[in-house]
């Protein structure tokens, strides 16, 4: 029943996370991902059928959760200030390597 994590799984996850793993890092990561499966196995000891997931603890405060602000256009951050922090910019946009190959 215990599915063992493969090297391909590790590489796939790294790709999804936009992280590159060095060859020597992969075995350790594989071991750690396997540990996740142990955690899950533990949780599966509990019968949670019919239990609503608790994603937000604030739900329990009977607080005014879900109160939304009016959908109004308001000034946001100053563009110049934001672009001052950008690694590469033409002051209007963020510059990145070409995405589309011709």
């Amino acid at each position: 029943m215990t599915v063992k994590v493969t090297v391909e799984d590790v590489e796939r996850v790294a790709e999804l996370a936009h992280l590159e793993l060095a060859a020597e890092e992969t075995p350790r990561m594989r071991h750690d991902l396997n540990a996740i499966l142990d955690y899950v196995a533990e949780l599966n000891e509990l019968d949670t059928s019919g239990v609503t997931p608790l994603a937000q603890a604030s739900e329990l405060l009977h607080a005014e959760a879900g109160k939304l602000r009016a959908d109004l256009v308001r000034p946001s951050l100053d563009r110049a200030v934001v672009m001052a922090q950008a690694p590469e910019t033409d002051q209007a946009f963020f510059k990145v390597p070409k995405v589309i190959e011709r």
Partner: protein
Amino acid sequence: MSSEVKKTESYVEKPKSLAELRAEIASGRTKAADLAASYYERIARANPRLNVYLSLTKERALEQAERVDALAEKGDPLPELAGVPVAIKDVLVMQGAPSTAGSKILQGYRPPYDATAVAKLDAAGAVLLGKLNCDEFAMGSSTENSAYGPVRNPVDPERVPGGSSGGSAAAVAANLAVATLGSDTGGSIRQPASFCGVVGVLPTYGRVSRYGLIAFASSLDRVGPFAANVRDAATMLGAIAGHDPKDATSSAAPVPDYAAQSDRPVEGLRLGVPVEYFAEGLDDEVRAAIESGIVALKAAGCTVVPVSLPHTRYAVPTYYLVATAEASANLARFDGVRYGYRSAASESLSALYSHSRDEGFGAEVKRRILLGTYALSAGYYDAYYLKAQQVRRLLAEEYLRAFAEVDAIVTPTSPVPAFKLGEKTGDPLAMYLADIYTVTASLAGICGVTVPCGTTQAGLPVGMQVLAGHLQEGTAFRVARAVEAAGL
């Protein structure tokens, strides 16, 4: 104090109380500008050794101090924290000041806005001295994961201050700030406060705005204060708590006078001691110190009863699944495009992302992102993340049932005192208990205070954690005051 600590260098110094400082500044006996200058001198002397501060915000601090002195001179009413030197964990943004989150990936980044908690301290007249070192993206429990070097515990600089808010705890312990802000996701305020012998507050989830807190796990993150005594910690919480329209998860519940609530005697309160927490892995000296604290609480008129939280052991796997999943989503924004570190010469956009993240993130952060990504990936989301959120509800309901029986729950904050740098407590049972003590409260959204509760033979601080139900910080402060008053 025992001879072992005296032999080693100790940087411990207790800050003055807020009440004392307020009297000095209001009367003009002390100028806020001189006070700030004296703190910068202390920082210059101690920081090379302790590595508490990552950056200083002298200009802003002195401007604020001069404003306060001008008010005091005219005899105008002073805001609540007028002239008080405070410092901020580097995961909270201060406009124009470096904010690294303890990571290389944000080296050089200067946020264009203040976190709400920071803005509130500013409005209260506090003098913001600088930014405090922490584990990278708040991931860690010793501050050894900071990309800028570890923080050393002022009690014994060969030991860790705890983490991830190690700098925030150490700053108060060494009087390099009178009070500080930190963040707690799975224990990151409580455990370092305990290791450094200061007071730390875990506010109810939603009590303090998370706007401007660089996110780790959004359903768990809390902003909270450190101080040298319980009443001042309560005052600090009062200053930063409250609804914030910029944080959709912030609570609209009114903010009571926490300091006044902390003054109330504890006679008649019912306290629960969870049997599952007093297990193998708990250091004997820590156990003894906590038991002394419980004796003191009984002497103060509390009834102490055992309680059982049978789902406790499921908190650890639940926490690891939830926290890493949310972290993987929150840290996706660090991609080298809009701010922070960008890797040189990448051949494609995809390579730019992975090179920047690979070079900018530390090992522990990468590890947690990968774990979280796995837990959320197609085919696994229901079985892993969703299952964890279901167990989370069971854990939270268990606490709610307990708080129907008792007013507060008392536990050790950490099963062991501060360990040595590089040692990383080797005992897996102790490490497991360490997680259990803190993550259960994180998952349930409840509040707590850690208060110094004696020391070990070697002089290392021990903290007692007082947990209370949602929005019951007043009760937690009351009990913590009683422990503090016992002078253990």
